[in-house]
């Protein structure tokens, strides 16, 4: 995929998964509304794999953090799994999917949410 800025690449992932039944962010929201999917940088964020320095090119690693309400453990885990499946299926070709990390319980403000991380990569080339 080609994008002018790295932010465009994040936005493209957001657009690709916009059809899933969740609030989709391409940044870290202060207070995410569950269910949600947030596209955030992974670690390492940028990997330089190709030869030549004349054009800025790198492999970008992202994490899609997926979160659902945590009221009932079994229902929350099921909801998280289904949301994760729908996000993975919504991604177009060209994305390298590696793993989905194990779910964890997080507290954001007064809300308790169940989250997991989908790890993916995409090649970026500066075109303007």
């Amino acid at each position: 995929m080609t994008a002018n800025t790295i932010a465009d690449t994040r936005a493209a992932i957001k657009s690709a998964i916009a059809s899933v039944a969740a609030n989709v962010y391409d940044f870290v929201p202060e207070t995410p509304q569950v269910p949600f999917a947030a596209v955030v940088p992974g670690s390492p964020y940028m990997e330089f794999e190709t030869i030549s320095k004349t054009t800025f090119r790198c492999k970008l690693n992202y994490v899609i953090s997926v979160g659902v309400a945590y009221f009932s453990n079994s229902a929350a885990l099921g909801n998280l799994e289904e949301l994760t499946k729908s996000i993975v299926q919504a991604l177009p070709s060209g994305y390298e999917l590696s793993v989905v990390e194990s779910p964890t319980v997080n507290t954001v403000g007064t809300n308790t949410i169940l989250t997991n991380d989908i790890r993916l990569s995409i090649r970026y080339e500066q075109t303007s």
Partner: protein
Amino acid sequence: MATTVITGRDVTFTLDAASYDAQVTSAVLSNEHTIEVFQTLDGRAYKALDDQWTFTVELLADWGASGSLFEAMWADCESAPNTTLAVSFTAASGAVFAFNVLPVFPSAGGAAPGAQTDTWTMTVVGTPTETFS
């Protein structure tokens, strides 16, 4: 002299006039230098007999893309396997090697999680011409 370090990111090359910078993760021009050793009455004697150069590139597959390098290489190897392709290889600014290689058929496919990649090991015809400036 001060320590000099150049990296793979300093490398650029064109093959058959096409730039491969965007797809190539590694490019190496190497030589197999054949030296015969003779045991003489005066001791061991050495004679350089032959050189075979090889150009090896590791790259990301781009099947189906507009201006695909893989498709171009496939077409070259299919239509004219004995016709060399010109390469201009810059190891770093001021060190340029010009040579000709025979085309190879790219491999297709890859493992599920990652990018499709391939390694082309191309036979160099003749000896590279170096330009050091």
